[in-house]
């Protein structure tokens, strides 16, 4: 079991900084996701942890030992690749045996470990198959088994579900998460899919432009985003303009908005009169008859089955998105009351 510590890790390609001095401590057995758009440095970071990419600066420690100069094959990692990277000329069993052969594990033990892992990834009976004879989901489980059978210090996953269809992807999320909990292995998971990161991780590291924008448990990232980039990346978000009425020193801040005066958390002092932006997630909003909450007019609505998407213009000019159940339909141009509980508003940059 291993604790991973990344300290001021940097990777430069020419003059470009792909990874720009990031630091994260990953606890023993923790499942951590690196989340961000393509080109944010998440995959480069993973490759540096794996040892496939040289490090330009900083340190990567496994249980306190700096591994920056240790070649990939000596780092004792298990890695799952986006395209599975199964050896096409080997059977499932041979794929699983490869890492054990490299470790010179004795034949009888090898057999028992392989059958145990096959059972774990629910592929008992598939040992003699070649990868191309398996479905995408099965190949994915072989890749997972191959990474786990060597009982590595850490498990690294590089967008492993990106090539699967939506239904299978959700099944595999649960499968991987359960498996990781059972094995209790320290795991780093790279993805650009916020739902994946949210549902699977203990903590999420959101990255933009080679830097960490925010580290936190999924609820932190979603409900208390550090900045607008994070707020927008992890889901649909409404922006509500406001003016500070009272920037108290007690960590509270009263902001005047079209929803009335909202008291939000703020570690920073704001002078009265300062213009600020509050975030409000669409699902926090309740639509009703005019009277409760802010006044708004329905601009348009889109039926999407279980929910209806509304675009609503508020009195002050802000346009917000929200969803509502179809049992309570509003027509276009209808005047509505837009209500949201005060604790669902969040002042951007509040923690800074």
């Amino acid at each position, binding site marked *: 079991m291993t604790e991973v510590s990344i300290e001021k890790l940097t990777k430069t390609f020419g003059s470009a900084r792909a990874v720009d001095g990031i630091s994260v401590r990953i606890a023993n057995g923790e499942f951590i996701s690196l989340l961000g758009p393509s080109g944010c440095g998440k995959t480069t970071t993973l490759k540096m942890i794996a040892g*496939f990419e040289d490090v330009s600066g900083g340190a990567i420690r496994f249980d306190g030992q700096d591994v920056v100069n240790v070649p990939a*094959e000596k780092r004792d990692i298990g890695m799952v690749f986006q395209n599975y*990277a199964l050896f096409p*000329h080997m059977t499932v069993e041979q794929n699983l045996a*490869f*890492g054990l052969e490299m470790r010179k594990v004795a034949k009888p033990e090898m057999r028992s470990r392989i059958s145990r892992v096959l059972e774990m990834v629910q592929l008992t009976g598939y040992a003699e198959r070649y990868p191309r004879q398996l479905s995408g989901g099965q190949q994915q489980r072989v890749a997972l088994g191959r990474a786990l059978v060597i009982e590595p210090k850490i498990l690294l996953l590089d967008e492993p579900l990106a090539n699967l269809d939506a239904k299978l992807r959700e099944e595999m999320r649960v499968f991987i998460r359960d498996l990781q909990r059972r094995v209790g292995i320290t795991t780093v998971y790279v993805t650009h899919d916020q739902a994946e990161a949210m549902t699977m991780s203990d903590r999420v590291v959101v990255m933009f432009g080679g830097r960490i924008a925010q580290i936190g448990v999924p609820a932190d990232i979603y409900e208390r985003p550090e900045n607008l980039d994070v707020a927008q990346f992890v889901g649909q978000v409404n922006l509500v303009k406001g003016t500070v009425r009272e920037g108290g020193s007690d960590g509270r801040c009263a902001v005047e908005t079209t929803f009335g005066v909202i008291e939000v958390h703020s570690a920073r002092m704001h002078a009265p009169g300062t213009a600020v932006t509050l975030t409000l997630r669409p699902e926090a909003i309740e639509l009703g008859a005019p009277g409760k909450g802010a006044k708004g007019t329905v601009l348009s609505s889109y039926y999407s089955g279980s929910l209806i998407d509304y675009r609503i213009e508020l009195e002050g000019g802000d346009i917000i998105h929200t969803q509502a159940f179809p049992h309570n339909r509003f027509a276009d141009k209808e005047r509505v009351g837009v209500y949201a509980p005060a604790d669902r508003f969040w002042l951007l940059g509040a923690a800074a």
Partner: protein
Amino acid sequence: MTPGRTKGMGPYLLILPAVLLLGIFLVLPYLNIVLMSFRVPGQGTPYGVGFTAGNYVKFFTDSFYILQVVNTLWIGLLTTAICLVVGFPVAWQLARADMKFRGLAYGLVLSPLLVGIVIRSYGWTILLGNNGLINRTLLNIGLIERPLPLMYNALGIVIALVHVFLPFMILPIMAAIQGVDPSLHAAARSLGASKTTAFRRIILPLSLPGIQAGCILVFVLSLSAYVTPSLIGGLRVKTMAVTVVDALIDTFQWPFGSALALCLSVTGAIAVVIFARLTRMKWKAS
């Protein structure tokens, strides 16, 4: 609808022109060669009356011809082996490395094919001859006292053939390596394999189809090469192809020449079958 289920003569009519073309201009002449190889040598005519197995008896009982087959096979094997050793790294580099001048390098690999084979072989005579560039230079520097025998021997033929056929080795191997997913190498490393082990256990077996194709191409081309061996080998070293042409054109022995040609073909075919058997890939089947 699968093509196999098609009813009627339509599809057969479509391939008829191709079948006729091949039949008339390829299969019939081949059959004629087989027939010719059993004919009696003629006096002043291409062949005489009646049939005989004598041409084959002459081939199998004369150690001169057997030795020549061995020689030809040896030259073919050596050329193939050198092409493989020299060509594989080039193919690897072209397929994998981030090269600035990949286009140029690719062009250089193809360049031997752009110049006629006669010209290329003559070029080698200029380089390899006793008065050639290589020997002259070495003599002038004082590294050697008398010219090295680079021409009129198997060595010279192999050198020239390697140059001529190298692209046929590089291109299929390059294509095969390009088809191997780069993350497989990374996967092997992550499982504890060193770079060399990852190469040996993963990349090499997966590029085997390309190696196999390249080897067969170069070997077959080397066996049947005529221009290069005749120019570089001169009168002293002859390959089977050269002897066949001698028999057909110089001494006008059509029946015996045909028998020789067939023996060369069969020898080559046997060698290729043995090679294909040895390098057969189990995982490709089924």
